[in-house]
């Protein structure tokens, strides 16, 4: 298992490297360059050329990439062309907010979706089941920006329970987290429900009932425990997406996360910032994927045997 993980992580390094190359190439395809994009008419052509030279933008693309890679391998993410601030500083100031929002959103999503999915499956085809599925489908369909504004109007403007935007304490995170959680809830709920329905039909469940175990014990100790294997893997796969940040949620609630920074930086081709954030997301994606595979192996002996058998 350990060797498997090491091999996967090593492959992950190649994946991250490939991501940086592809990203660099894609950014070069965008017309113009950051100096021309951010300059206002007062900037003279001579100054523009001087700045392009200062930032190495007049160098061939492969030279620019090489210098970026050399700095990156020394732990230097470079400097933002627009703000003049170190990329590591810009990311470090925003990462706690992104982690906080992503962490809480995931917590709420699974804390709500798993019990509701279990209830919906156990009460299959009842009014409760249909109601839960109906509401979750609506939430899945609702555009994030609309949901965010609705929650803001209801719970911050009309009934001022939470702050409208920005951060002024722990309560500030609730509305942005709910806006991220509620649409994502549907997917996890439906997955839990379908996995529980499948597990409930397994012969070992009948055996457990036949042995006289109470219904609650059968559901929690046997059904849910097997049904949650794919759900747990989904948890790890969801993490990088949320860490990438949600531009819409961050914009509506003025949440100073990485998503908004990434979006703004792409717009002005602030390549060092874009590269820095994307590398972090790529690394976290690789780690999450490996963690998901390992967790799957730990939880399901069949998968673990397959992995270990593959190593032999």
């Amino acid at each position, binding site marked *: 298992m350990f060797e498997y993980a090491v091999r996967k992580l090593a492959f992950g390094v190649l994946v991250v490297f490939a991501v940086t190359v592809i990203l660099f190439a894609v950014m070069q395809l965008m017309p113009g360059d950051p100096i021309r994009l951010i300059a206002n008419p*007062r*900037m003279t052509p001579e100054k523009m050329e001087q700045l392009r030279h200062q930032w190495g933008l007049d160098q061939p693309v492969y030279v620019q990439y090489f210098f970026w890679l050399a700095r990156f391998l020394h732990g230097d993410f470079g400097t933002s062309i627009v703000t003049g601030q170190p990329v590591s500083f810009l990311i470090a100031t925003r990462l706690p907010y992104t982690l906080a929002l992503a962490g809480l959103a995931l917590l709420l999503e699974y804390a709500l979706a798993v019990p509701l999915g279990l209830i919906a499956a156990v009460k299959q085809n009842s009014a409760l089941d249909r109601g839960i599925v109906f509401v979750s489908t609506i939430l899945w369909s609702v555009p994030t920006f609309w949901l965010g504004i609705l929650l803001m109007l209801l719970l911050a403007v009309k009934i001022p329970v939470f702050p409208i935007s920005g951060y002024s304490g722990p309560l500030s995170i609730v509305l942005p987290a709910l806006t991220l959680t509620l649409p994502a809830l549907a997917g996890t709920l439906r997955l839990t429900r379908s996995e529980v329905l499948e597990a409930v039909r397994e012969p070992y469940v009948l055996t457990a009932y036949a042995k006289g175990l109470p219904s609650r014990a059968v559901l929690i100790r046997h059904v849910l*425990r097997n049904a949650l294997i794919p759900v747990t893997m989904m*948890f790890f796969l969801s993490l990088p997406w949320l860490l990438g940040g949600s531009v819409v949620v961050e914009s509506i609630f003025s949440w*100073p996360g990485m998503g*908004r920074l990434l979006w703004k930086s792409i717009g002005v081709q602030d390549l060092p910032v874009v590269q820095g954030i994307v590398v972090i997301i790529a690394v976290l994606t690789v780690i999450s994927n490996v963690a998901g595979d390992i967790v799957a192996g730990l939880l399901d002996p069949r998968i673990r045997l397959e992995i270990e058998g593959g190593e032999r």
Partner: protein
Amino acid sequence: MHSRLGKVLSLALVAALVAGVGGAALVGCAKKQPTSLVIGTVEEIESADVQQVNWDNFVHMMINDPLITMGPKMDKVMPSAASSVEIAPDGSSLTLKFPAEMKFADGTPITADTVKASIERYIATSPYGSDWDPMSELVVVDPHTLQIKLKEPAAYFLYAISTCYSGIVDAAKAQSMGKEAFGRAPVTYGPWVVKEWQQGSQITLVRNDNFIDNKPFVKNKGPVAIETAVVRFIPDTFTLVQELLKGNVDIVVDVPTEQLAQVQADPNITLETYIEPGTHYMYLNTHRPPFDDLRVRQAVALAINRDELKSALDNAIIPVYGTLGPAQICFSQATEDAIKAKLGFNQAKAKQLLAEAGYTDTNGDGIVEKNGKPLSVTLAVGSDRPMDKKAAPIIQQQLKAIGIDVAVNEYEYSYVRQLTRDLNFDMAIRNVKWPDPDIWYSILDSSQTDGKIWSDPRTDKLLEESRTAMDLSVRTEKFSQVADIIAEEVPFVSLYSQTEYVAIRKNVTGVILGVDGTLYFNDATKK
């Protein structure tokens, strides 16, 4: 098995809980702010050091007192950070005197040498160091007097040094702190100074107790009354207005027109207006068909009904026909009226010009053709420019009425600028916002643009001459002649100047709004 799943699930949920709650606590901890003036704006600053930015922001105006000011009416040179300003009669020099007791917030004295070092740093550091190109020498006459010698008279230079870009910074501290640290917490001279900048969220400013203001039109010449000011960066305009209506934000400097009615209806808010010191105009690509034909360009100009545009845009614009907007220096109403008479809405004449250019509707579909090819063009507009975005479909319909098929393409405005620079466009709506008309030198003069988009030796000559004309009436006449040539050649069609709205809650009083949108807080108080 059971316990393993339980452990894994527990571990995952605990990790999420720790990240969520711990992060929330971390971000929650430090952010409670004392009672203060809260200003909301959409754009965050690039850097707190005005000498490093590409675009200035409201924040820079609050922490950088300019050397001189053109006053709230932008009509004459007055002292600001300098206690007096003398312009030599021949325009060859300016002499600035500074108060002997002038200090930065940390008590460091500000002398003429300090100001000189700040200017030299600006020239070396700023993307707009060329603002100081007219200067030939900085002479420290005595510890509190600095003479700026000019290569030649430069009227536009006066405006350049009346903006926040001319604010005095502690160049010695900038050197010792380094660019990055100074960009986060610059040592500046202004009514407030930076206390803390929470990236992506807000910047907290505290009063400079050593501040002396020499502006003649403010009553309070000392430190401002309000101790703390917080500028919040709220990118979503709906959210910005909600914060204003709720009283969490005291002032919004750029109220979106979509929410204007809501703000106007609130009895606790005063809505101030000013006309944007600039214009929005529609560039026509004269380098390729169909706009390489003057008659087609003239037809487009005559097809634009600005009154209809104004009505459709909720009267939030002032129609402009000439090159300068009504809030810009050197604007001439006579010139504006003359160009309106020549290029004002005239649909019949527009159709006639198209016919003269060989465009007729042969198949009755409402779109004119020439040599079997319909007159179809694209109009690039900034998706992040709300007024232009609203104007584009109206312009599309107005041009359709004379037989031009227009496809509106929305892009980020920075990309629209890129398209025009690359000459990869048919029509594009752009805008310029700078009170001094010398900005048109940067846009039109072939020495600045290599004549890329459009140039004319006549406008080159007039723009050069305007730079050295110190007499306002002479300068105005030069720009009027530029406007006449533009109206004759129609490389672009001026559309409008925007009305800008500043919302101030009624518990904040004494704020002075200049015609260019500058807010003066010297006499401001908050209950």
